[in-house]
């Protein structure tokens, strides 16, 4: 790519960003950007022979970058610029990508709508009255609105797949340990993974190829070599067994959503796949398990934000007063609620009843997946979310109602398996996502199914 072409691609991205993001009617999906810096970076990488040479990429605001702030959508880190960058960012830049902006998200990635950002809610590009999903709603909306074709988000319970479904793009959560978490601000460390958004399956596959791999700075990354995921792009699925778990297709499932899923399953059958009914019997316990374990880990991880080491400091009465004033002023309502919940389930007298019990049930959920995959199933197909994008403010009064929007996605995080969402059609004009789940490090099979389904549905996936 020539200098002019690389710089031109960045200018086009910024022109689109300006068009959709700012102002009273803007989508508020981008928090931080620096066009001059991005253009310099583009000129510098123009001669790169990397697979992402000159490609503009938007990054969620909880992934550390050197030149743009990393605020995690929180007042407590407002203006904070990291002195080091995430390994995923280093890999993207080495592949020639140009980091152009940091995207809006729920504070510390805690939310399912990107309404819980200290910098105001992000809006859905398809209808600004609706949420883009969350917590990586800004990155999903950046791809959906045409600012970029690849963006990074992070997943703890569905924060890439659910906004991908709400915005009509592709979103991938890799196997736990597939991508380094070094430089990803920790929320719930046993669940967190950096994920990739793409305008198409191929973009997401390429993005994951670039950022995946062992990292000495994250001891939970796996030794497994990284396959070329784009090689999974084929037309037929002969010999592939797709599981259809009955727990993800309850009687209460919206008939229109069921119809779209059935159409996708028919398409998979027509490509040669066998569709088999399977059961993941502990699915209904996933939300209670998740909302014990994730807040417990968050209450510990977020203890570091105390006014001493990072960002905001509010003076108070003595050391404790300073801690309390800083944290109370710096954290928003949802983060405060989850810290309290996490502290409670870890506290003396309740640890066994909640945290230890939840870890036991988490093991049963992971075993459910192992049982299905050990029986010869290559991938599982489900809806990504029980509804399409909902209205801004519609679920603000009932935290648990909001949590239920992750009901089909949290299981993959709890089990550590890879999963992705891709568009499979529309309900009342709004995008709907279908989810493909694979065994640990089964991303090649996951992409194989996704590539084939995307091709089979064609334009029907977007109408």
């Amino acid at each position, binding site marked *: 790519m020539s200098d002019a072409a690389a710089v031109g691609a960045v200018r086009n991205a910024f022109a689109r960003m300006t068009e959709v993001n700012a102002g009273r009617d803007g989508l508020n999906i981008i928090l931080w950007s620096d066009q001059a810096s991005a253009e310099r970076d583009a000129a510098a990488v123009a001669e790169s022979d990397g697979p992402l040479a000159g490609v503009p990429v938007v990054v969620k605001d909880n992934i550390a970058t*050197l030149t743009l702030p990393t605020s995690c959508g929180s007042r407590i880190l407002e203006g904070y610029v990291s*002195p*080091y*960058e995430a390994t995923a960012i280093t890999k993207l830049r080495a592949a020639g990508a140009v980091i152009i902006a940091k995207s809006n998200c729920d504070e510390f990635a805690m939310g399912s709508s990107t309404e819980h950002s200290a910098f105001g809610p992000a809006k859905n590009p398809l209808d600004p009255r609706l949420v883009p999903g969350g917590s990586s709603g800004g990155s999903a909306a950046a791809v959906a609105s045409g600012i970029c074709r690849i963006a990074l988000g992070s997943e703890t319970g569905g924060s890439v797949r659910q906004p991908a479904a709400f915005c009509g793009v592709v979103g991938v959560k890799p*196997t*736990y*340990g597939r991508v380094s978490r070094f430089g990803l601000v920790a929320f719930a460390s*046993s669940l967190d993974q950096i994920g990739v958004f793409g305008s198409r399956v191929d973009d997401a596959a390429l993005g994951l190829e670039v950022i995946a791999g062992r990292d*000495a*700075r994250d*001891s*939970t990354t*796996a*030794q497994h070599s990284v396959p070329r995921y784009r090689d999974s792009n084929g037309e037929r699925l002969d010999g592939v067994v797709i599981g259809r778990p009955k727990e993800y297709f309850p009687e209460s499932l919206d008939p229109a959503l069921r119809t779209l899923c059935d159409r996708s399953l028919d398409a998979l059958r027509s490509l040669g796949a066998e569709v088999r009914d399977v059961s993941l019997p*502990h699915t*209904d*316990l996933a*939300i*209670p*398990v998740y*909302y*014990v374990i994730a807040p417990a880990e968050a209450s510990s991880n977020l*203890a570091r934000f105390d006014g001493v080491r990072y960002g905001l400091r509010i003076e*108070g009465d*003595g*050391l*404790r*007063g*300073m801690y*309390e*004033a800083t*944290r*109370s002023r710096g954290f928003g309502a949802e983060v*405060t*609620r989850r*810290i*309290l*919940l996490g*502290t*409670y*389930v870890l*506290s003396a007298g*309740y640890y066994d*009843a*909640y945290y230890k*019990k*939840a*870890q*036991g*049930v*988490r*093991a*049963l959920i992971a075993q459910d997946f192992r049982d299905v995959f050990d029986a010869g199933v290559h991938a599982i197909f489900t809806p990504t979310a029980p509804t399409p994008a909902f209205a801004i403010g519609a679920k603000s009064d*009932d*935290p*648990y109602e909001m*949590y239920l929007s992750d009901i089909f996605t949290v299981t993959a995080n709890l089990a*550590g398996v890879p999963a992705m969402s891709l568009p499979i059609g529309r309900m009342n004009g709004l995008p709907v996502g279908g989810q493909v789940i694979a065994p*640990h*490090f089964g991303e090649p099979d996951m992409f194989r199914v996704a590539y084939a389904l995307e091709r089979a549905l064609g334009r029907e996936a977007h109408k």
Partner: protein
Amino acid sequence: MAVTRDDVAHIALLARLALDEARVPALTAQLNGILAHMDALQKVDTSNAIPVAGVGDAGMPLRADQGPPIPLARPRDTFAPAVRDGFFLVPRLATHEDAAGEVVE
């Protein structure tokens, strides 16, 4: 297991959060609403559950108890307003002054 307003005040203390008194009733109700859904976990037999430790057959990979240096974009002594002998100098906190005045028996 219902959470009381006193419980909320106690866990706020543990979490280093100063809650506005007016928010405590609503937070108590919300936490109870959430925790009510957690009760379903108590009915599950987890006695034979195999603990989750890592992903796949490899389990949790281990490494030597040292990692590569963190590639810092700017010198370490620019991180704080004042540095001496490689240590960050922090403002004296009122607690220290209070402690200095206390009688230790």
